[in-house]
């Protein structure tokens, strides 16, 4: 009996893993929007997540957009359809791409067992949360070296999926975005034992 309890405590389901990944993306994206000054700082409020105070947007339209993208993403994550999510920052007037944050996903097959028809990983939640916390903190500190976004900017989220993925009506296909003369920086990565997330920021060098 105790052995069973032990096992369930250390287990993470596919659903839980997808939730953690989308939570990370939500707070990571909010943090980027605040730290890079894309929206006015007055429209953000501090919330406690993963043991950090993270500034989350209070703008309804932004939240609605993020929620609709991330809920769709969670479905695709469960079906292992997603390769990566890109946050693209473009200059509003010239449409030039200034910065791209890539959240690359890998699906891990090691240490994964199937229990009651569900995929289950074996990593402890506190360890995962600590790893996520470290990446989120790194995102905050990037402000000290990334170039200033001088002109008004807007952002968009692009999801790179596998070709056999079902696409709902409100989604469009677009082309890849490049930054001319870019520099790339790999941040820390984290793994839920089911999903592995690599965060990379590319920015324009002068």
């Amino acid at each position, binding site marked *: 009996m105790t052995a069973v309890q032990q096992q369930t405590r250390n287990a993470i389901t596919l659903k839980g893993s997808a939730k953690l990944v989308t939570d990370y993306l939500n707070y990571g994206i909010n943090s980027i929007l605040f*730290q*890079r*000054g*894309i*929206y*006015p*700082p007055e429209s953000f409020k*501090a919330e*406690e997540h993963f*043991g*950090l*105070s993270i*500034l989350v947007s209070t*703008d309804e*339209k*932004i939240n609605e*957009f*993020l929620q*609709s*993208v991330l809920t*769709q993403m969670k479905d695709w994550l469960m079906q292992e359809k997603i*390769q*990566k999510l890109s946050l693209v920052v473009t200059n*509003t007037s010239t449409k030039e791409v200034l910065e791209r944050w*890539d959240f*690359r996903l890998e699906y891990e097959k090691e240490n994964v067992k199937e229990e009651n028809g569900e995929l289950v990983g074996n990593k402890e939640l506190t360890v995962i949360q*600590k790893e996520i916390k470290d990446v989120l*903190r790194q995102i*905050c*500190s990037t*402000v*000290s070296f990334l170039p*200033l*976004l*001088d002109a*008004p*900017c*807007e*952002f*968009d*989220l*692009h*999801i*790179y*999926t*596998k*070709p056999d*993925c079902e*696409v709902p009506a*409100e*989604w*469009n*296909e*677009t*082309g*890849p975005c*490049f930054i001319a003369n870019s520099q790339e920086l790999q941040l820390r990565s984290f793994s839920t034992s089911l999903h592995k997330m690599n965060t*990379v920021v590319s920015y324009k060098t002068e």
Partner: protein
Amino acid sequence: MAQFSFLNDLNSAVRMDEPITKGPVPRWQKKTLEPSGGINSSLNLSKGKISASFNASSSGMPKTPKQSDAMAMKKTPSKTPKKSPGKTPSRTPTRTPSGGDRFIPSRTGTNFELGHYKLNQQENEREDDGLSPAQKDNRQAMKETLHGCDISQTRILAFQKKAPAPPEGYVNPLKVLYSQSKTPMSAKATSRYIPHAPDRILDAPEIVDDYYLNLIDWSSTNILAVALGNSVYLWNAATGNIDQLLELEGQDYVSSLNWIQEGNLLAVGTSLGCVQLWDATQNKRLRLMDGHSQRVASLSWNTFILSSGSRTGQIIHHDVRQREHQVALLSSHTQEVCGLKWSPDGKYLASGGNDNMLYIWSGIPGQASYQTTPLYSLSAHQAAVKALAWCPWAPHILASGGGTADRHIRFWNCNIGSCFNSIDTKSQVCGILWSSAFKEIISGHGFANNQLIIWKYPSMAKVAELTGHTARVLHLAMSPDNTTVLSAGADETLRLWKCFVPDPLKKKEVKDSAPIHSILKQSIR
């Protein structure tokens, strides 16, 4: 070149036995034929070809010149095969010494670059098919690194309804991080005089430019301890004498310093994780305390308890009187502890780390038992918390400053664990000190202005900005008489600012009022 064709002309003219028709064409005939057939065709019809051949040969591509040479040859009239197109330009001026029938091509109107591009475009497309497998693999690999995945196997999707653009007229507030502009001073002018230039500048060669270390401290006996590289120097502020206290061996360097309240003992933390106790009056080492596995970046005394914070995030309380000196181990921080300060009454210990956390620990003065869980965990800062200072007149109030990504000074009431004020300083906060005489605080900053700012407390109106450092201010220390602030900069200078010198008139008032107070007290008794 010209003389050869002339020779040819001459030769054919000399052959008398051949019919006259094969001889050189009469000059007038040549003229009418030449421009229309020779030059015109080469410039108008095969404009692109010629330019292509010229450009290609200059860039040194092996294939193209041959091809285009052949093409150009075909285009030139068969009638004059000897004359290669290269010759014609040099010849034309000699043929037309004067007159209006010269053909001058207008090269400004011809788009050679476009022509060249159009020509090469087709060739490049052809080249794409003729790639070797190795080159194809290479190209594929390039594509994959560029996109981060195999793009032909991927669909890129975007949500139709886009996020809203930022409000009209909004300017990125982070501009302050990158610009040199000065932030406005408070409108109300202060009545007192603050010298804007440093009183003295001392050299500090080889001071380690590391935000996380604590390398200067000023004792209550008016001796300033400075760590430069692997040595510690003592500067007697009254006499100006400099003594070397210690020098570490090998790669080891001093990472932190702290004077005991009485001012005779100096605690020194090293990069190898040792904490040393030095008697400054006899220049003698008294104790060596281990316990940390990485460098000791911060130290703070509370009577006989010395607390040390290390790069591992651990804080150890050492009881310097005991043989087993380690009395408590606090391991809440996950990264380097760069700020560590006991409150003046010894009730609280504040610790700030590179993990952006500020912890308040409770301590009971005179007791050697310490809790290993923090009283408050404060996560409001968005960057490393190095600058910590307790209010001298209200011992439960703490000021803390964050690093580059945060730039805020926050004020905490540690009795209830809440932040009651915060201000954006627009620059990295490296150090904070309080002035109890003026109820002001002074903060040291990094990029862009490397300045010290004096703020009025609690309104946080800016009183003065002291500039002079050419690199960021790393550490701040206050003289024991609370009049002079010392700032150590990454520009390897120590600057002394006499910014809290009391007004002589005001000082008198205080002296006058003091005896009256005591008399009153006596009479009541």
